[in-house]
């Protein structure tokens, strides 16, 4: 009996032990409320990427704050903000960290969600996601690195252009925020000196909604929910009145439509190529006396977006692409290539824990937000320390993501121009420590992306430039350690990334934000 009692007691102790909390605190949980050191009120004069002039956008003049229409709206805000539910408070606390920041996180979430290569059909061919039928398997899109780079870029650019326009109208109409009109109103977020009409948050919500509806149509319900929450939070928190929101939302959508016009004609539609092109790429490579790349997947998968290299860049003219494209890689049968293969082989045969950590940290493969997303995450953690205004957040992301999109274009252009083999294709002894992507080796995508991102971020935050370059170097090395790329891929990739970023840096120097 005593023993049974002891047993029971042990059981109770054990149950107590296992009931401990396992919840995880995410790295973005502690982001502070947006409280810019500078309002960047003059940002209406900054250079937008795609839209040309505020005259293109018929934002109506707002009712004066003394009008009865405005007073009614003010009463509405007072009423809404006086009786908040816990759920409304949660939504306020989420969005108050910053509109551009949160949409960037939402984008990373959607990219990771859709970054899975389609599963083969019965006949061993692969289905292609269809924008016309986005909900059917394979759901649209397959957000692989080039798709993702372009998506991040267009969303960022639409947000930035929208905010530049918004600042122009803010400056033109100079309408005060509701808490400045009525002192009795205590907003749930830090007060801002910036004019309230049109609302920055609503501009970003409208622009993001329109862009993401195009880029991630299967997630329309989620995107709609987030956009609506964001617009509501401005009312609940006492930050804007309804007309501020309506004007901002419309402006954001109009700007996004200009960006969409550009996106629809940038060449993405034909980036997937066709069987004739796939064969031609192989034949052209053989004609040069080289060993062509082939898909290492079973069943063989068509190459990933072989014509993405013809997409229209954001930072320079398509005619400049061949000049930026790096020179040919070492020949498959050259002594240099043998040397580089041996190096990769030695890494894969002696996987130290530290090298494996580097491979895993930078893998950014299937089911992740891709290397461009990873650099957005790195940038975000850095940007929160600097207390930027929404428009500066947007500008920085736009510079970063424009260079990442153009890095994808240059990288893909180079890959399919040379169409050369992966290390493990040339030496079957090489077994990889991460998945081999389904496209040619030269140049390394990770290296190109990282070289570009590190250079842009180093320009924006000079104090950390050295660290960003070191991270890019590590990202680049990770591909050798993992057996995915040889040294020439990585070096040429980093250099090309730097070159592309220099266009973004030149732009940044004269865009009016400094």
């Amino acid at each position: 009996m005593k023993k049974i009692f002891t047993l029971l007691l042990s059981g109770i102790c054990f149950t107590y032990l296992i009931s401990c909390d396992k919840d995880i605190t995410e790295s973005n949980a502690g982001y502070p409320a947006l409280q810019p050191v500078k309002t960047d009120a003059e940002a209406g004069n900054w250079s937008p990427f795609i839209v040309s002039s505020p005259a293109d956008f018929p934002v109506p003049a707002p009712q004066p704050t003394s009008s009865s229409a405005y007073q009614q709206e003010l009463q509405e805000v007072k009423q809404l903000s006086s009786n908040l539910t816990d759920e409304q408070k949660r939504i306020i606390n989420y969005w108050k960290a910053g509109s551009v920041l949160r949409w960037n996180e939402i984008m990373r979430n959607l990219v990771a969600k859709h970054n899975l290569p389609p599963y083969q059909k019965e006949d061993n061919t692969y289905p292609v996601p269809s924008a016309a039928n986005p909900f059917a398997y394979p759901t649209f899109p397959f957000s692989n690195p080039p798709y993702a780079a372009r998506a991040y870029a267009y969303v960022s650019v639409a947000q930035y252009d929208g905010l530049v326009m918004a600042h122009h109208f803010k400056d033109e109409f100079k309408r005060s925020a509701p808490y400045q009109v009525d002192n009795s109103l205590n907003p749930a977020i830090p007060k801002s000196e910036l004019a309230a009409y049109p609302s920055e948050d609503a501009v970003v919500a409208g622009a993001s909604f329109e862009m993401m509806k195009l880029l991630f149509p299967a997630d329309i319900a989620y995107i709609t929910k987030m956009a609506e929450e964001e617009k509501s939070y401005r009312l609940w928190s006492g930050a804007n009145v309804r007309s501020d929101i309506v004007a901002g939302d419309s402006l954001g959508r109009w700007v996004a439509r200009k960006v969409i016009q550009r996106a629809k004609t940038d060449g993405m539609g034909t980036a997937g190529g066709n069987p004739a092109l796939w064969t031609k790429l192989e034949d052209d490579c053989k004609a040069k006396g080289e060993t062509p790349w082939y898909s290492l997947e079973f069943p063989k998968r068509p190459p990933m977006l072989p014509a993405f290299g013809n997409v229209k860049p954001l930072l320079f003219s398509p005619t400049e692409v061949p000049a930026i494209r790096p020179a040919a890689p070492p020949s498959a049968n050259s002594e240099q290539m043998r040397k580089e293969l041996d190096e990769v082989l030695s890494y894969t045969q002696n996987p130290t824990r530290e090298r494996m950590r580097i491979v895993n940290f930078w893998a950014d493969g299937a089911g992740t937000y891709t290397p461009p997303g990873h650099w957005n995450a790195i940038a975000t953690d850095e940007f929160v320390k600097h207390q930027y205004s929404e428009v500066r957040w947007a500008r920085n992301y736009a510079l970063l993501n424009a260079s990442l999109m153009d890095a994808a274009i240059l990288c893909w252009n180079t890959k399919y121009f040379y169409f050369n083999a992966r290390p493990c294709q040339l030496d079957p002894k090489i077994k990889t420590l991460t998945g081999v992507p389904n496209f040619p080796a030269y140049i390394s995508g990770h290296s190109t992306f990282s070289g570009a991102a590190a250079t842009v971020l180093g320009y924006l935050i000079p104090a950390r430039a050295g660290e960003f370059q070191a991270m890019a170097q590590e990202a680049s090395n990770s591909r050798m350690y993992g057996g995915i790329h040889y040294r020439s891929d990585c070096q040429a990739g980093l250099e090309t990334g730097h070159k592309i970023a220099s266009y973004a840096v030149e732009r940044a120097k004269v865009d009016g934000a400094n």
Partner: protein
Amino acid sequence: MKKKFYPLLWCFFFLGFIPILSHAQTEQDALMMGERKLCVAGSVGYNSWTNYWEGTFKRDNENIGRVSTKSAMLMLNYGIKSNLNILASLPYMKTKATQGTLSGLGGFQDVGVFVKWLPWQKQFGRQTVSLFAVGGYSTPSNKYNIDLLPMCIGLGSNILSGRLIADVRVSNFNLTLSGAYLHRSNVEIDRSAYYTDHQINSHEVKMPDAGNFQLRTGYRSRLLIAEAFVDNMTTFGGFDIRKNDMPFVSNQMNSTKVGLEAKHYLAKLPSLGFHANAWRTLAGRNVGQATGFMAGVDYIFDFSPKTAKN
């Protein structure tokens, strides 16, 4: 008259994807090592699979072909008292895929320590009923890679386990039921973000707890043990592998397997034993449909002052 029980040592692999020795073997059987006796056991094992389940969808994958795990394990079992044993185990593993480009991984996996206690035993005529309680802890012996499933050698979690075993013997036949709760600590991966059914920005991964249930029955005598078993592993939580995605450390991994187990001690040298088992996964979720076998040798050292020679 008191029967001397010898511990049954067998290799138990808890997953098809990863040959995890979620808990060492003898913590699962209804056997005790005698007082001041030390059993040292070595075994080798092999298991492999070509089919696996993505959630409930069963498939194969030509990019990995057949994934196999070879293992070698050292185990110790010491009788502090005849009703209180302490056990320890450490396996070494090596994985390999027959197709595709992925490299296999290898190394020492988790160190496990278990305390086994027989608090209650009673005879009812020809039946003997025994109740056992086992508490265990296992922890990775090194920081092996847990972010390249299915090639990883383990899940990297610290596991605190509690098990209850009920055993009924009628002459030389037995029926053993056991259930364990595995409290698994969260793990750290090298990435700073990962996607489960949503994006999570952290190195830390929430590990769902798990349960293990087992039914064993067969013949048990002093020199020969032969049993059949059904074993079930259930993860309480976790998520399914998405279509064509890689498996992830916190997936919901469930499996039901059946197997046979035998152990034989030499009549002329009863301290030397041989044991073997073979098993097959019948059903699973987010695991490979593995088939495995194991063979080992053990030797019992007697440190008691007066060895009762039979």
